[in-house]
């Protein structure tokens, strides 16, 4: 095989749109996952349902917006808020709208198939939104289908995009979003479940923790590895596992890989801030152990993780997307000659 120019340059604006397109699809999927698993838990444990819904509002980190617009965490309120609220920027509908708008500005840079799938996905949710409230089995089916649509979209991206910069920016977007969301669900559930000292080791606890695992499709993989559920193991699996695709460590590891592919520098070295930050975070996770996480406090660890993920996001923006002034053209040319 001849070695050509490894990867063509990509417009900053296009890279940014692809990154956000993938990120918003992932966001919609994760919201659907949280709702789906909550609906299922309620089927097993129908009393005090409001208590089940409030943590979902907390995972969003947008509690203030919710209180202001909705008040109580009734199932109707939370479902509306997270699913169809066009004014709330992170609802499933808004996320898909944003994903699609980003894709629309770069449809020539992704494959037709991926665009068509995202377009169908959007129309599916938009139709459901205009049909109004979802009830009973239709409700559960809807969130399942959102998940399926997202999987189909990601599958098409993986099967139709060359592994060039475009794909790597999409991958970066979805993995960073996923890492963030897994950390949030863990944090909120840990916070709500742990104070209930009576429940530790009871069936209810087991049910709740298996729901957390199910919400990130981790239940079966977890069972294969550990068989019985303990809080330590759940944390270890969702934070530190390097093989499970929704575990934080996995996401960070492959996001790090993608950013190195984009820049063209070898793994283990860095040329810019995103590579440096992701590499450092990856090393932290690879060499961490669950006991020290629990001892330090899961909440503190997750807080720190989210801060670091945000810093990575800002560094990506500054390095790849921000419009540099014309005066730097000369500098870049010189730099290229030395490379």
């Amino acid at each position: 095989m001849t070695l050509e120019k490894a990867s063509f340059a990509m417009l900053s604006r296009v890279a940014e749109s692809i990154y956000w397109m993938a990120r918003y699809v992932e966001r919609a999927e994760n919201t659907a996952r949280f709702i789906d698993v909550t609906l299922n838990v309620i089927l097993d444990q129908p009393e005090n349902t409001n208590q089940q819904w409030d943590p979902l509002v907390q995972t969003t980190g947008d509690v203030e917006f919710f209180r202001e617009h909705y008040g109580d965490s009734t199932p109707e309120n939370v479902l509306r808020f997270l699913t169809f609220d066009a004014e709330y920027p992170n609802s499933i509908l808004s996320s898909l709208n944003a994903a699609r708008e980003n894709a629309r500005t770069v449809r020539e840079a992704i494959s037709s198939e991926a665009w068509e799938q995202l377009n169908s996905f959007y129309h599916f949710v938009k139709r459901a939104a205009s049909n109004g409230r979802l009830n009973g089995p239709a409700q559960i089916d809807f969130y399942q289908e959102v998940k399926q649509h997202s999987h189909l979209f990601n599958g098409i991206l993986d099967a139709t995009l060359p592994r060039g910069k475009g794909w790597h920016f999409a991958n970066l977007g979805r993995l960073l979003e996923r890492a963030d969301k897994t950390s949030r669900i863990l944090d909120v559930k840990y916070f709500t479940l742990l104070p209930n000292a009576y429940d530790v080791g009871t069936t209810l606890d087991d049910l709740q923790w298996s729901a957390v695992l199910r919400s990130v499709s981790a239940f079966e993989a977890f069972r294969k590895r550990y068989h019985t559920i303990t809080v330590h193991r759940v944390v270890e699996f969702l934070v530190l596992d390097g093989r499970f695709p929704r575990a934080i460590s996995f996401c960070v590891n492959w996001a790090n890989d993608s950013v190195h592919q984009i820049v063209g520098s070898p793994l283990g070295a860095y040329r810019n801030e995103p590579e440096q930050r992701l590499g450092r975070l990856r090393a932290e996770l690879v060499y961490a152990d669950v006991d020290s996480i629990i001892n330090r406090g899961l909440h503190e660890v997750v807080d720190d993780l989210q801060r670091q993920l945000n810093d990575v996001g800002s560094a990506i923006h500054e390095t790849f997307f921000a419009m540099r002034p014309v005066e730097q053209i000369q500098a870049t040319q010189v730099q290229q000659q030395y490379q």
Partner: protein
Amino acid sequence: MPQDITFHDYQTEDYYDELFDAQGRPRPGAVLLAEKINSLPPGELAQRRDEIDRALLRMGITFTVYGDDEGTEKIFPFDVIPRIIEAYEWNHIEAGLKQRIAALNLFLNDIYHDQQIVHEGILPADLLEKAKSYRRQCEGLSPPRGIWCHITGTDLVRGGDGAIYVLEDNLRCPSGVSYVLQNRLVMKRSFPQVFEASRVRPVIDYPSRLYQTLTHLAREHVGEPTVVVLTPGIYNSAYYEHSFLAQQMGVELVEGRDLAVKDGFVYMRTTDGFERVDVIYRRIDDDFIDPQAFRKDSMLGVPGLMDVYRRGRVALANAPGTGVADDKVIYAFVPEMIRYYLNEEPILPNVPTYVCSREEDRNYVLANLDKLVVKAANEAGGYGMLVGPHSTKEQQYEFARLIANDPRNYIAQPTLALSRVPTVVGDKIEGRHVDLRPYILYGEDIWVLPGGLTRVALKKGSLVVNSSQGGGSKDTWVVAMNEQQIAESETPL
């Protein structure tokens, strides 16, 4: 009970019909199609039409309806019955278009240099001076390879006499070619057998022809030139087309803010830094491409672009300044241009045009405002227009005043009985008026895409084909001659 949609009760109603002759018999190229549609099981045609609408929505081939809070997206209506053009007739159209584009290109080069056509008294000097789209910034400009109009979409109509006339030349940023390609795609999926049997000439190679046309403009020593499509952005109504063409050619779609000028070259901002650009297919009007050269308030363009262009370090398609040939008064002189520059008789006639700056013409127009269509020279899209037979006395009076105040700015043409094509309307087939926009590329030589965009006025009796006013489109089939290539029924896009 599904309705039976067939041609059995179809009436041409004294109009020239593109598929049926005056006796109601299918024209030779339409025989197979008529047979096929008449033999479809009841409900089948309606079902295929609905499938096509869904496919267009899924592919996102839509335009946004403004002023609607929901941001409703509508598909550009598509009619499943194609327009068919016989081979001999297409040869005539193609020859006429090539001749016309050759003459227009020579004209553009002349008026921005020596203006011999004016000095020899063929085009009155004041007509040129008062053309709003004449660009002084382009005087003395020599575009790469001497080509000004690389991409043209000429509007043709057929009158009641059966002859094809040129209605207007669009030499700025003609749009619609993406619909030609997408219409063909959905037709092939929906009617593969009849399509194959009808020996239709392909349109699928347009993007690669366009790419060749554009790379032809790059400076000689540039090995693999970087070509980009420059769009005003996502809110432009033709944005879908800009994106589609960039994707099909495999080039970057850029906005003004993605480009920058430095040290005499144009660059685009990439994740690796700045990369040089050689050829720009710009879908932004002259006025907006460079705030330093044209409109100062443009946010869409690239400051300094014209300067780089003048030095020959970047190519623009089309060249700035081509809009002057779209002026409706200048249009009236195209047959004269063909005689003057090529020493040939025009193959395709203009629609007869009265130029109001000529006294004789003006008197005739003023006396016949109720019969004529009056158009302002520099307007497009149906604005500044009087359709005599459908106008009130007040409107006619208003136009008489406008013409008397500024005769240079007005022309008039007879109202044409545009030809019709059978069109599915609800659950039956009725005739609807059409026009035709073929696309012409001027690269190493002049090439015409077989067919073009057939626009159809979906409202009964309407002559307005614009999508904003109830227009739709149809696939356009040019029948191949024996030695010519035909379109495959299964071509993946």
